[in-house]
């Protein structure tokens, strides 16, 4: 009777059931079910699929953000990077490349470099991540003034278009991309020494350094990853909207942080998992969608949105005590 709970497998099941990521998944499911009763159409397959597709953009941005937060930092430049990615991609179209892959790779390289510069500032200049990435965001605004509106032709990049619109086997390509990225992220995070170094750096950077963790290069890598995934999100969001514009990335800054924390990752670093961020991202788009269909004045909607996040935080976001 009680036997299975004490068996090794049973313990693992219990551990999963009581883990933060699972809790967040359960909340998402509960909200979906409740909302389906409240609003017809909410629970339609197409709608849920659309929510997950939207979640993919937040999820991609939040993938890098999760790395950075676990490593003890924070990246406030993700929104600007998403915008830079979506704006600069149309500027790069090469006739020689019919697939559209080359410009995408070039843009991802660019955003990764932006991330690496963040990392350089944090690791070598020892500027606090919040300041470094905030300054970087300001910087990128300047860059945007130069490049924005520079493209006289709409970018018809086949790869980008496919990402934003295709549905192989009924599943949006963006969601497939997210699934692939999630698998890689979870593997890197939890099954490689690199991932372990990140957790160590976040929990206690000094002890990590004294244990031989190459702090500088790991920091660089973490911010580079964040630049990369934000760039990827920019490509996806460009595909979904058919057109980039200044401000296209703005919603993703706070959303990425909220998804990370709602997923149970500690904002203090050293603890957490992307497995929680994934449902966290879906939870956020779900709440936004719910608020949209509620008929209320803007003020009340805003209050409702904040209260929902706060309520969910009570369920899933408790900080563990530390010393």
């Amino acid at each position, binding site marked *: 009777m009680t036997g299975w709970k004490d068996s090794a497998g049973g313990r693992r099941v219990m551990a999963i059931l009581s883990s933060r990521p699972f809790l967040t998944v359960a909340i998402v499911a509960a909200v979906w079910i409740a909302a389906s009763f409240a*609003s*017809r*159409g*909410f629970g*339609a397959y*197409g*709608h849920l699929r*659309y929510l997950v597709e*939207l979640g993919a953009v937040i999820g991609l941005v939040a993938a890098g953000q999760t790395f950075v937060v676990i490593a003890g930092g924070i990246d406030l430049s993700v929104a600007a990077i998403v915008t830079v990615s979506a*704006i600069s991609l*149309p500027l790069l179209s090469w006739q020689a490349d019919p697939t559209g892959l080359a410009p995408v790779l070039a843009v991802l390289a660019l955003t990764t470099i932006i991330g690496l510069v963040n990392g350089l500032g944090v690791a070598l200049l020892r500027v606090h991540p919040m300041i470094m990435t905030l300054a970087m965001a300001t910087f990128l*605004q300047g860059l*945007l*003034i130069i490049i*924005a*509106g*520079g*493209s*006289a*032709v*709409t*970018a018809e990049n086949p790869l980008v278009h496919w990402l934003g*619109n295709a549905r192989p086997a009924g599943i949006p390509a963006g969601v497939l991309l997210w699934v692939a990225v999630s698998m890689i992220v979870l593997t890197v995070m939890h099954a490689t020494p690199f991932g372990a170094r990140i957790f160590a750096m976040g929990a206690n950077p000094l002890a990590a350094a004294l244990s031989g963790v190459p702090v500088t290069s790991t920091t660089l890598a973490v911010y580079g990853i964040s630049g990369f995934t934000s760039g990827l999100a920019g490509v996806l*969001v460009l595909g*979904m*909207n*058919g*057109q*980039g*514009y*200044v*401000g*296209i990335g*703005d*919603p993703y800054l706070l959303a990425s942080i909220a998804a990370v924390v709602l997923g149970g990752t500690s904002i203090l670093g050293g603890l957490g998992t992307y497995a929680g961020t994934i449902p966290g991202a879906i939870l956020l*788009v779900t709440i*936004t*969608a719910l608020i*949209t*269909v509620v*008929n209320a004045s*803007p*003020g009340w*909607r*805003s209050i409702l949105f904040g209260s929902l996040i706060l309520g969910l935080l009570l369920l899933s976001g408790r900080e563990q005590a530390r010393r």
Partner: protein
Amino acid sequence: FEANAAAKCIKGDRKAPYTIGWANIYSVPTWMKQTQGTIEAEVETLKKQGLVDKLVVTDAQGDANVQIQQIQSMIDSDVDAIILIAGSSTAPARVIADACAKGIAIINFDSLVDTDQVTAKVNTDSSQWGDQAAKFLIDAIGGKGKILILNGPAGVSVSDDRRKGADAELKAHPDVTVLAETNTPYNVAPAQEAVTSLLFANPEIDGILSLGGALSAGAVLALDKQGRDQVPITGENARQFLELWKEKGLKSWATMQPNWLGAFAAYTAVQALEGKDVPAFVKIPLPVIDNSNIDEYLARAKDFPADGYIYSPYDEELFKKLLAQK
């Protein structure tokens, strides 16, 4: 000293060539960039005429408090004219009054300030915008049906005025039901997201009253992606929307906030400084885009940024005519 210079704030003690300050609220968006383009072009012309020698540009990065500080700096550096897109309809009122008291010509355009201590305000009529858009839509759906209303950000006068402008028409047609309203930034992505959610919640939608920016493009994309039929929709002259309009064969109507408001503001400032009388409020008639002239606009599309706005043509004659109106 010309004691009886005509326009407000003008004392007549300033001599050409003038320094013009452009106090922008946020220079990064494409609309702003295009507007800056028209201002710079106008300033070039005025420079050639020996009327202007310098254009000073500030960018408040979206922060109305910073804009106040920058206008103060313009006053401190004694510019001759300030052209201004206000970050808040109330915040800069006092600093503008200070500038006015110092004899600086102030031309406020696009986003207006609730003060009359300016030389002139230049704008389209937001209320009329809402009214005309509502008229078109209600007409297009045959005077009855279910509609969505997409509006710009909450707490901002322009979006509020446009929305209020639509009220009378809506009231007059009790058979028109408003299913839902949204407030988002004037951008494609948030509009697309919101409309998609509303599509699922509302199986029947007959029309969309969209009150500006790129909101309409987002709505069209949402309908398209969810495999729903396009419905009559209003909008603005965003290039992406105009192209979708043509591509999807929409039943549509659009107006615009012409970017040349900027050029016109610079022109007006110089006219005022030169002692000409300028009206306290220059109402820019709303240029209308419909199926009759959409092709003219699209023919010029390649001259405009892909994420930009295709504005109506302008020249000095137009400016003169606008200034002459009473």
